[in-house]
């Protein structure tokens, strides 16, 4: 039986290859996601563990929430005397104070910012402390370390990207005054542990670094300690801790590495899940292709299977034969998919390289887990998909071997309709719960509802396909006459197969449509929000989300056309487990520029007060007069709630006075300046004046209402295009499904096609017939998908009204374009099958044997 199965596989390799291809793509996506995130993790691990000393001293960190902590620039410092104390500890081979600075940018020879996307620019003082593994942390590629003011070293990738060589005078944008510093490049470095994952490294001598980032005081942010090999990391950490003054902590290299790694892991975990969701979608779509292929193979072979049954094979054996075939296809597809995934990850890695996130120092990581998951997923999905056809195959009665007709028993559609109705009810029930109740996690409920709705549409598509196809057929007949009629009849011939083929496209387009409605609604909400909330004339901001110089505000206020300029700094903290992203500013002045609508209480003008937006106030269940503990990286600060304001995109989740920074020990680093012109000043002249001030500082941009909305929309659109691209794979698989179905139906109908050719159907007409059938399949899938997606998108938008997606926008033009593209996809999918049908030899086709 096994050898019989294997011989069957070889005999039908082309058809199986097509369904295996669906597995290759789906599994490739899964494997690619793992390989890519493992590679990123490995690269980040090298950074996390390879760049820390044996023992590190830093101000005590209070908050462990990585996301809000990352927004905090620690203002607390370590006096140089502490470094001397630490040096005296037994077992310390070497101790060096470290200075870190942010908000610095390398300006290229072409006077542009280097790397405004992705990774940060990190400024340090030169420090030759070795890492915990007793290796050099940085290596000099050329030149020497900067020794005095006016000298600098940068990393090799930055030097190459900016077009600088040792000895050149290079420009840096800083937060200080003047904003642009010219300095001599004395050396080029690289991390010994490999890549910097795209980060830019700028090194100064200690004095210069202190002048730039410590206001010239002999103070440090950290101390890095080299360990004498006779003492363990743990013991030395304890010893160092003993000599430290209060407020400072000693952290072993391992712990610090773990801390950094956990931040990376959180981000990578999210990225991996995100990619795997799309891989899952591709696999689900692919399984439709497999169900179809195996159904058709079983149908074609029914008399052969009946012969096996007649000769004494049991039902189980026939079923097993089909399932073994599926397992082999799944296995081969998975192995090929692994290779494809590896290639995909390599492609992604080099694509990131172009975007400035250089992972070239790390080889692709291929863990055994990736192989196991990929093969298991591939084989299991194939087996599940082949189960229904296998069961049907086992039901072929032995007597069918004696009959000419190959009719396989097809189950009734009743159970499909019933399960479809059940799924639909479930889906709409979930939608209702999400929309009209206060149950938690409405997003998940809508997600489950969308899946239910899709299952309902797919289950009932055998029935719903008929009116849609009949409608399309009427159009075809009107335009293409008799050939249109033939195409219509062909598409209606096997509604089950047509529906299954179209379903793959339905899933893809339903998701694309949902996303496009969400995207359009988000953009409309941004426009609406900007209209309502952007009550300032201009904002001055740093597009890289890095801080801008606080001196800029003073310069702007002095402009004759400016009435008011109010700076604002984004901050992040937690209360309990609740992360909050808010800002500090001059709340009184801020309220004069923005319409802050306090529903309760008043603006938090006094020190030690704060205001929350309604959503956060509700989540925290706080009211005016309550005292809350804000946990920052740098420490915990108790504040009193002064007011609660209406939610607004422009305002963030909380507002507090600048005094909060000092209370929490956070560095002042403005992120936005809101500017109002004088009533009599011209809009254009004011803008020009602002641009003159910021001209020399490429990190700063001036935005008005239009350009602000535009920038916000651009972010939404970038995300949307990324999702479209990822869903594209599912659509490619759906197209393969159409190709497969058409190719098989052309083979099945060889004699019929030969007859049509004999009685006078031209080759061109035959091709058109196959093409129209393909278009009917694609458009059916698209119509069902777009309809489902529209319902899903509307429900999703309604669910997230409270989260800022206030406006509903259905991008009708875009949906029509999706439909048109689907029809085009149909035309393209038909190219090969139509060609094959047209070159059919009439005599071979109609000859009896």
């Amino acid at each position, binding site marked *: 039986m096994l050898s019989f199965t294997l011989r069957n596989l070889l005999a039908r390799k082309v058809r199986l290859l097509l369904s295996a291809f669906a597995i290759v793509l789906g599994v490739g996506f899964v494997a690619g996601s793992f390989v890519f995130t493992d590679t990123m993790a490995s690269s980040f691990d090298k950074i996390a563990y390879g760049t820390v000393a044996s023992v590190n001293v830093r101000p005590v960190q209070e908050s462990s929430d990585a996301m809000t902590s990352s927004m905090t620039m620690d203002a607390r410092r370590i006096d140089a005397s502490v470094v001397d104390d630490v040096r005296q500890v037994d077992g310390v081979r070497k101790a060096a104070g470290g200075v870190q600075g942010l908000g610095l940018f390398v300006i290229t020879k072409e006077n542009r910012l280097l790397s405004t996307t992705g990774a940060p620019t990190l400024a340090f003082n030169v420090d030759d402390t070795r890492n915990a593994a007793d290796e050099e942390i940085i290596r000099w590629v050329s030149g020497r370390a900067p020794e005095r003011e006016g000298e600098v070293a940068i990393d090799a990738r930055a030097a190459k990207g900016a077009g600088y060589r040792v000895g050149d005078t290079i420009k840096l944008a800083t937060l200080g005054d003047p904003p642009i510093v010219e300095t001599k490049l004395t050396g080029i470095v690289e991390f010994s542990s490999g890549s910097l994952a795209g980060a830019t490294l700028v090194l100064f001598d200690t004095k210069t670094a202190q002048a730039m980032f410590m206001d010239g005081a002999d103070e440090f942010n950290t101390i890095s300690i080299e360990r004498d090999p006779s003492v363990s990391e743990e013991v030395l950490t304890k010893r160092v801790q003993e000599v430290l003054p209060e407020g400072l902590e000693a952290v072993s290299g391992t712990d610090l590495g773990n801390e950094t790694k956990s931040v990376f892991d959180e981000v990578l975990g999210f990225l991996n899940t995100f990619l795997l969701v799309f891989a899952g979608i591709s696999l689900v779509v692919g399984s439709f292709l497999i169900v179809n292929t195996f159904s058709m193979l079983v149908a074609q072979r029914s008399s052969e299977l009946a012969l096996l049954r007649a000769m004494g094979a049991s039902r189980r054996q026939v079923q097993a034969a089909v399932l073994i075939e599926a397992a082999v296809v799944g296995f081969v597809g998975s192995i090929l998919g692994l290779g494809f995934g590896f290639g995909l990850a390599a492609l992604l890695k080099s694509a990131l390289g172009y975007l400035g996130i250089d992972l070239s120092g790390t080889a692709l990581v291929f863990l055994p887990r990736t192989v196991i998951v990929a093969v298991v997923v591939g084989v299991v999905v194939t087996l599940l998909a082949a189960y229904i056809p296998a069961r049907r195959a086992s039901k072929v009665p032995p007597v069918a071997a004696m009959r000419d007709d190959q009719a396989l028993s097809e189950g009734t559609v009743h159970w499909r309709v019933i399960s479809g109705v059940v799924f639909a009810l479930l889906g709409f029930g979930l939608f209702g719960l999400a929309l009209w109740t206060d149950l938690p996690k409405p997003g998940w409920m809508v997600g489950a509802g969308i899946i239910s709705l899709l299952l309902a549409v797919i289950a009932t598509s055998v029935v719903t396909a008929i009116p849609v196809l009949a409608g399309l057929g009427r159009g075809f007949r009107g335009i293409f*006459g*008799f*050939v249109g*009629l*033939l195409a219509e*009849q*062909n598409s*209606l*011939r096997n509604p089950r197969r047509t529906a299954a083929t179209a379903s793959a496209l339905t899933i893809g387009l339903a998701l694309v449509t949902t996303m496009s409605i969400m995207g359009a609604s988000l953009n409309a909400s941004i426009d609406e929000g900007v209209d309502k909330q952007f009550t300032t004339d201009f904002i001055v901001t740093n597009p890289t989300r890095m801080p801008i110089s606080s001196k800029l505000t003073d310069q702007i206020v002095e402009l004759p056309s400016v009435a008011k300029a109010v700076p604002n700094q984004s901050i992040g903290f937690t209360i309990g487990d609740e992360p909050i992203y808010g800002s500090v500013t001059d709340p009184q002045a801020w309220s004069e520029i923005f319409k802050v609508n306090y529903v309760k209480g008043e603006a938090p003008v006094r020190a030690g007060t704060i205001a929350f937006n309604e959503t956060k106030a509700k989540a925290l269940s706080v009211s005016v007069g309550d005292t809350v503990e804000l946990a920052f990286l740098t420490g915990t600060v108790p504040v009193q709630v002064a007011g609660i304001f209406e939610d607004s995109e422009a305002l963030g989740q909380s507002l507090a006075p600048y005094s909060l920074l000092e209370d929490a020990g956070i560095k002042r680093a403005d992120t936005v300046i809101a500017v109002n012109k004088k009533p009599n000043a011209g809009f254009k002249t004011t803008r020009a004046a602002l641009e003159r001030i910021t001209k020399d500082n490429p990190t700063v941009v001036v935005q008005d209402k239009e350009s602000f909305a535009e920038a916000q929309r651009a972010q939404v659109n970038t995300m949307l295009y990324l999702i479209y691209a990822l869903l594209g794979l599912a659509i490619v698989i759906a197209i393969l499904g159409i190709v497969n179905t058409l190719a098989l139906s052309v083979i099945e109908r060889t*004699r*019929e096609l030969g*007859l*049509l*050719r*004999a*009685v*006078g*159907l*031209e*080759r*061109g*007409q035959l091709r058109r017939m196959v093409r129209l059938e393909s278009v009917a399949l694609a458009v059916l899938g698209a119509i069902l998908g777009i309809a489902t997606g529209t319902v899903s998108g509307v429900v999703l938008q309604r669910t997230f009204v409270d989260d800022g997606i206030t406006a509903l926008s259905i991008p009708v033009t875009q949906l029509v374009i999706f439909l048109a593209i689907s029809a085009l996809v149909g035309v393209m999918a038909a190219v090969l099958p139509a060609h094959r049908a047209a070159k059919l030899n*009439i*005599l071979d086709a*109609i000859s*009896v044997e």
Partner: protein
Amino acid sequence: MTSEIAASATDLYKTYGSNEAMVKALDGVSVDIRAGEFTAIMGTSGSGKSTLMHCMAGLDSSDSGSVKIGDVELSTLSDKKLTQLRRDRVGFVFQAFNLVPTLNAEENILLPLSIAGRKPDKDWYRKVIDAVDLSTRLKHRPSELSGGQQQRVACARALVSRPDIVFADEPTGNLDSASGAEVLSFLRRSVDDFGQTIVMVTHDPVAASYTDRVIFLADGKIIDELLEPTAEKVLEKMARRNRRVKNPV
């Protein structure tokens, strides 16, 4: 009976395979098909009778020689022109799988006209339908028709476009004798009543007896011809031929 020629073949040669395995399917065949006549081509399997029909009907091409339908030389036609010629001037009845399963009887009958985008001649259509006695079965799909009814639908289709010539390839090969007789009578009547030209390939002497003229083929050559055949005469010819083979002189 006029001596007008509906179709002709001149010096047709066709071989399949090469070297040792070479088969001469047509070995210099020349034949004229007279208009308004019912002609049978007979021969054992492998005699070349089907190949001859396929070449004359424009479904296959010969290695050399000429085929004409009316005064159109087929070998010079492009695939497209040849297809249109089959559609407009030739009718076909095959042994099996004559009908498109998704179309009903009426749509199948009108198939060549529909492909050409032409409307049927109402009176002529009525006449044909009545002649094949199918007026009550027109809306049925092929799967709902008996084998004999299916072949009658095929005959109606072959006639409805008023072709110059109808080629029938073993049209009764899959039918029981009663259904076969119906189909053959219909073909006979269409020659007598409508003046239709028909060429039928068969190996059945009874079927051949319905025709006006029988051409015998063996090893790719025309070896004999019989006018106004009866089943007995055909059998006798065949028997004589077999005897010759068995007892060579």
